[in-house]
């Protein structure tokens, strides 16, 4: 006979307002196997927990049901309390009578009856709970950071400074990301390169960081503490050990007419190149798609002029396997492109803005390159079509963002501030020029942010027009901006020399493919999902994977750096222990019954099911069965629901227990 204790929480008034908690306790007390039942105003408080602990010893309890909020909220709290009173924590279950009952009902009679039934079900289940012991797994104290922008760099440096080894993987030939492209940064207008490049150099020189540039994640195996990551190092065609970074190859390359994507195609680069002069590593790569040698087999100039003999046309892609214990994902963002989108895409283009075909309609990042001292114009604001200095520039905010009809409803967060910054940079460089900004509303929450925005209007002469832009078209060498001023209730037309669109921040193309390799979840826009929006903002639901920067949602530099350091701190917390304790709520296979259909393997979202061979003493193969790796199993129970021969069960959620719950109804 069980001796179960039932504890009903009022949750202040959250539960007791609609549920008669005393009656629920009285009803519970009458159920066979219940040794004790009570109610209390705040069960999770210190006195509430003491009440539970005292009852465990006083009534010699062997199972507990706490009827309160969701187990996601306080299951751990009560399990810990029971454990300190000497009870196995896995004999404690929560009956959710708040989210599942009091919050969603109004009628007290009915809500009380429902709460009683929920409690009864949990009592029946707890009767069959087993004592479980936490699973321990070893931890490899090396971290992988994916993405070498400011987020990845910050996370890598923090972890490496703490003494742990970091593998940093970057897709482009150099680290630096978008921040290396920016001119000056808000709200202090310090030069982006000046604060970024020292960090890049720190990464290159750090003894604890292994840098793989021009590389991508090919495959991820394993689980928290024990990942095996396969990295594809794309053929650079230049031997990194031999190259001195002298740059002769780039100067002599006869093919110099390749649009420079780092400069948003405003300038040209050779086929053998570094993306920008401060690149880390300062080793060129050959762009094989555009290289004359790779296209026709003739040329070979770079190889001939290379003193150290570093150019190697025969280099192939290389696969490197790195064992790591934690992964920080910091793949960043890209900007919405207003050109025509493929049919069927949920994201639409901007036909009314000419689908990106008007040369002097540029995006914010292109403006950054124009304003950057290291940019294609040497920091002069000159428009792309004819190199003239624009006298009237119209900035349009919320292009793509907050536009449900265009497929994106979220706010891109950084555009209000960088547009204010752009108007200032423009005013600093073109003194008699006029900047206009079309905006919905200025979103400037942040330290010194609103002051910065006010400054652009009050001191830097920017004219802000509240309203949307309906159309852009070329008229001679001007661009006509048709818009509305909703403050004055009139239509406005401005003949501008250049138009800068604050286009939406989107996750990197292919972000979902990486997520699938990592087994992490993402939202409908392909931003990676954190485990809890408020309380676990840098962790993924998948254990051992952490998020940093704009891959999780639009973010400015201060927020990105904060999140990157937070992710690093989480990694260091994990690395602080030699072994890792995991929840023992995992699936177990009854090998006798298993028919090796591996339906469970197909449905397992964690990749936890493996094939296990059973052999006799002579080594003869008797049978193949499914085996669940307890280190990987997430305890979702999908395999249990799928198994046709009922050969796999989740501890704490066995078929018997579920049936007992249903029968209690």
């Amino acid at each position, binding site marked *: 006979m069980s001796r179960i204790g039932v504890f009903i929480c009022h949750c202040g008034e959250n539960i007791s307002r609609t549920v008669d908690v005393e009656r629920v306790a009285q009803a519970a007390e009458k159920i066979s196997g219940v040794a004790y039942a009570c109610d209390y105003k705040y069960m999770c408080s210190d006195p509430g927990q003491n009440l539970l602990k005292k009852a465990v010893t006083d009534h010699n309890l062997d199972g507990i049901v706490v009827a309160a909020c969701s187990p996601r909220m306080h299951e751990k709290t009560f399990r810990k309390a029971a454990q300190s009173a000497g009870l196995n924590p896995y004999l404690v279950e929560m009956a959710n009578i708040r989210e599942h009952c009091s919050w969603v009902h109004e009628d007290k009679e009915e809500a009380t009856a429902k709460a009683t039934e929920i409690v009864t079900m949990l009592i029946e289940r707890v009767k069959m709970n087993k004592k479980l012991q936490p699973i321990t797994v070893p931890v490899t104290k090396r971290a992988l950071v994916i993405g070498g922008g400011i987020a990845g760099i910050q996370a890598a440096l923090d972890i490496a400074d703490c003494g742990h080894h970091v593998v940093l993987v970057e897709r482009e030939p150099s680290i630096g990301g978008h921040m290396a492209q920016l001119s000056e940064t808000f709200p202090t207008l310090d030069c982006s390169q000046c604060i970024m490049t020292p960090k890049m150099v720190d990464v290159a020189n750090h003894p604890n960081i292994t840098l793989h540039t021009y590389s991508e994640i090919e495959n991820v195996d394993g689980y928290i503490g024990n990942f095996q990551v396969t990295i594809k190092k794309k053929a650079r065609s230049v031997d990194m050990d031999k190259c001195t970074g002298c740059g002769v190859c780039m100067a002599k390359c006869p093919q110099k007419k390749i649009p420079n994507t780092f400069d948003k195609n405003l300038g040209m680069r050779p086929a053998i190149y570094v993306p920008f002069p401060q690149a880390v590593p300062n080793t060129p790569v050959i762009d094989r798609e555009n290289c004359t040698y790779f296209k026709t087999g003739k040329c070979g100039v770079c190889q001939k002029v290379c003193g150290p003999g570093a150019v190697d046309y025969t280099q192939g892609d290389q696969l490197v396997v790195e064992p790591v214990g934690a992964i920080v994902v910091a793949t960043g963002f890209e900007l919405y492109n207003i050109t*025509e989108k493929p049919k069927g895409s949920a994201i639409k*283009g*901007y*036909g*009314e803005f*000419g*689908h990106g075909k008007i040369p002097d309609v540029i995006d914010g990042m292109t403006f950054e390159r124009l304003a950057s001292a290291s940019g294609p114009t040497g920091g002069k604001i000159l428009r792309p079509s004819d190199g003239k200095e624009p006298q009237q520039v119209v900035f349009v905010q919320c292009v793509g963002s907050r536009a449900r009809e265009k497929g994106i409803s979220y706010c891109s967060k950084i555009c209000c501030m960088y547009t204010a910054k752009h108007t200032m940079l423009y005013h600093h460089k073109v003194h008699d020029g006029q900047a206009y900004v079309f905006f919905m509303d200025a979103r400037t929450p942040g330290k010194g942010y609103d002051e910065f925005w006010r400054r652009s209007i009050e001191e830097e002469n920017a004219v802000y027009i509240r309203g949307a832009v309906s*159309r852009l*078209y*070329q*008229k*001679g060498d001007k661009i*006509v901006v048709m818009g509305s001023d909703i403050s004055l209730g009139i239509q406005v037309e401005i003949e501008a020399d250049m138009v800068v669109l604050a286009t939406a921040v989107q996750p990197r193309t292919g972000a979902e493919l990486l997520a699938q390799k990592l087994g992490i979840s993402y939202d409908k826009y392909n931003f990676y999902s954190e485990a809890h929006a408020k309380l676990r903002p840098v962790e993924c639901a998948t254990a051992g994977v952490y998020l940093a920067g704009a891959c999780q949602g639009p973010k400015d530099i201060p927020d990105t750096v904060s999140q990157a350091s937070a992710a690093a701190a989480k990694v260091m917390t994990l690395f602080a222990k030699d072994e890792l304790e995991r929840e023992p709520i995992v699936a177990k296979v009854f090998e006798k019954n298993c028919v090796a259909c591996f339906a469970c393997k197909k449905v397992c979202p964690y990749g936890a099911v493996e094939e296990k061979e059973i052999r006799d003493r002579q080594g003869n193969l008797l049978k193949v069965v499914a085996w669940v790796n307890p280190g990987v199993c997430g305890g979702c129970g999908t395999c249990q629901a799928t198994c046709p021969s009922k050969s796999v069960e989740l501890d704490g959620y066995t078929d018997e227990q579920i049936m007992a719950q249903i029968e209690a109804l």
Partner: protein
Amino acid sequence: MKNILDYSYYPGCSLHASAKEYDESTQGLFKALKIGLKEVPDWLCCGATPAHNVDELLSLSLCAKNLELAKPVEGDLAVACAACFSRLKTAQHKLADNEEKRKQVEYALDAPLALDKPVKHLLEILAKDFGLERLAGAMKKPLAGLKVACYYGCLLTRPADVPELDCAEAPTIMERVIGATGAETVSWSHRLECCGANFTLSRPGVVLQLSNEILASARRAGADCIMVACPLCHGNLDIRQAEIEETSGEKYNMPVFYMTQLLALAAGVSSSKLGFDSMMVSPLGLLKEKQLL
């Protein structure tokens, strides 16, 4: 001789009145291309702008009635007027999955709904059903050297999910169709701007301003003429052109053709059957200059 394709045909009110030349040239062109057009007997007005502004049920019912009348006539329903096309497509769209509205319209018509007949604009028939290659092959007198500004107006492509003729904001179907005649199309800014439409009666000042901008944009792009597929646009750009010139002080002398007039001319239909004489801005000078007459 057997036709290559056969359609039922809904001309709409304008094509029997102010846009007669659109009707004549459509008939002439389709005959030359061996495409059959059989007018829906006893068709009604589509309701145009007034009906849907005042009473949605009336607007939907008129279109549903026309589709019912078209049902027994063989072939998809060919429509020339951009407004009729828009109204018929809108009715199909709105009634497709709105049970309440379907019931109301059925009650009003006292007959079960018959909305299934595909409604096709002439552009769609020429570009997709007939095909651009075959169209180019049927052209006897290429319009080489003629610079045409294709003007879509509001309704041919919008709202995006209703007509589904082409991309709503950057369509190319008119350019592709007239391109088959060898004419040169210009890239210009006001292809999809509103001409002022029905304000031509109530607030002509609006039309004079908007249509002036369209004419100015076409001229800026170096066009010899404008090509339209909508009687109302034609009215505003052609009939009002003298007045626009008067109020703006600009001199355009820009002929405004219906698409079928140019296509039929290229297909070898006699120019006397294309209603050039009923255009307010005479195209004869231009066509002679380009040696197309």
